[in-house]
């Protein structure tokens, strides 16, 4: 009796590929933060704590790397920010024992917003994000700590961020983790349940959610981005894995259109050796 074993070709299990070993991720990222901060001649760090999962996770990682007493958490509410955001940020501050500041940005941004009554919410959101950057970099000088970024891979790829705003930082510890991987790591490190459970939001207006604004869920888009970016699938190959082709094209176009946010501004090359072209040293060279 001969057994004939015919196995159907299986779809790639992207959820399994997106699963991470949280101990290993923690070890590498904590080491990275400690290394980057000390190499630059610092012992401390500053970060904006929004009450969301990304900045909560970075606070946990930074506290492990540098000691909680060396991580300044800054809450920067605007007048429409939800009370829950402040409360959730406070949970992280209390749980880790972080030094903290609460700096209301409304009086700083409102005069500019009021100059333009027709201003849309994107412009307002960008002004707020950039104002928060100014506050953080000022605290960086006052507290003598490096500004730690809280961008994740999903939003970096989709360009769901404000240039020179939330994307401005000295280091990006979770910039290579998709949102779904951020959730895994946050859960493993003990980020408060209320933060894990709530819908991701930039909290610029009441009821705003990332997934509502993007038009798809992070679970869905992370699976797709993993195939396109990490897996090097073509748009057609990704669609063949069970995605709507129009959705794949829309996402990939968004990745391309926002590439300018991921690169330094182009320098017009004139000389034989130019910054931005062939004057090549690591960032760590300065450390």
């Amino acid at each position, binding site marked *: 009796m001969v057994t004939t074993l015919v196995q159907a070709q299986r779809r790639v299990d992207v959820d399994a590929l997106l699963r991470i*070993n949280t101990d*290993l991720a923690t070890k590498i990222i904590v080491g990275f933060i400690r*290394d980057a901060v000390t190499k630059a001649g610092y012992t401390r760090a500053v970060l904006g704590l929004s009450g969301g999962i990304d900045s909560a996770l970075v606070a946990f990682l930074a506290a492990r790397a540098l000691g909680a007493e060396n991580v300044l958490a800054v809450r920067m509410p605007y007048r429409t920010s939800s009370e829950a955001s402040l409360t959730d940020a406070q949970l992280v501050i209390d749980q880790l024992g972080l030094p903290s500041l609460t700096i209301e940005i409304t009086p700083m941004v409102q005069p500019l917003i009021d100059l333009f009554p027709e201003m849309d919410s994107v412009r307002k959101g960008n002004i707020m994000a950039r104002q928060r950057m100014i506050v953080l970099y000022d605290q960086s000088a006052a507290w003598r700590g490096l500004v730690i970024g809280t961008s994740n891979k999903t939003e970096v790829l989709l360009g769901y961020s404000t240039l020179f705003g939330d994307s401005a930082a000295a280091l990006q510890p979770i910039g290579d983790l998709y949102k779904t991987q951020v959730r895994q790591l946050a859960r493993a490190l003990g980020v408060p349940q209320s933060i894990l459970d709530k819908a991701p939001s930039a909290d610029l207006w009441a009821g705003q959610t990332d997934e509502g604004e993007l038009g798809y869920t992070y679970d869905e888009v992370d699976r797709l981005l993993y195939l396109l970016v990490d897996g090097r699938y073509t748009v057609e190959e990704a669609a063949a894995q069970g995605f709507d082709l129009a959705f794949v094209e829309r996402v990939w176009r968004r990745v391309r259109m926002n590439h300018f946010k991921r690169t330094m501004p182009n320098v017009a090359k004139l000389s034989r050796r130019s910054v931005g072209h062939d004057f090549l040293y690591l960032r*760590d060279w300065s450390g």
Partner: protein
Amino acid sequence: MHLTVGLAQLYPKIGDVAANLKEHLAQIEAAKAHGVQLLLFPELSLTGYNLQDLVYEVALQPTAENPTFRQLLEASGDYDMDLMVGFVDTDRRARYFIAAAYLSRGEVVHVHRKVYLPTYTLFDEGRYFAWGDSVRAFETRFGRFGMLICEDFWHASPPYLLWLDRADVFLFHSASPGRGLDASDRLSSARWVQLVNQAYASLFTSYVLHCNRVGYEDGLNFWGGSTIIDPDGEIVCAAPMHEPALCIQTIDLNQIRRTRARLPLLRDERTALTARELARIIQESHDFRL
């Protein structure tokens, strides 16, 4: 014959040869306390890895005239310890190579220049370095050895050539950036290197000593996990992942003979057949890479 081997899994400082030399001498002294006879350092251990335009500042010639090498040569004599170190080699015609030097009793016994320069994805070695053009085994006081650097042993042919050139102990070193985080407790790059090193030890019934670095350069992490693998393909010593370590292990070189009595792969290797078929393949091929 027994040989006490040390793997100095350190974190070189980018572009700072003086600081790295100091660390090398400290590791040599620490290893001596444990009777180490052969100490391996990682790829580009004297300079750091992703040098870019610093290549031209840190390059040196591996002779006693060079103050850095002179100190290492003296240490190999004073401590009676053979050393494998990584550096940027330059010739008198302003060409630069990633290189490994084997030092013994005050002499440079052998220099290997990296043959395969990865220039893809995050790697850009071909932009700065010339490729080495030979793979040679060499005699040491402990037996006949061969050295390879990182990408050299991602290709199957350099280890195979060393084996045919009568190397019985393979000294590999690397500056391997960690990548491929998934559900496993090790990065996929770490799993892959360990897999091929166990394969080489098994296929060539030889010892494989692998020293990898740790630390960070910009966003890159280097995963360490240096290993000693015996001629049966078993890991006899494994340094921790992602942490500096000095991993010391005494190995029994007689195991090579015992394994080859059981598994005479070397005796039965058809070298002339391989050479004949290679010559035919090259002649018949229109592939420019050959």
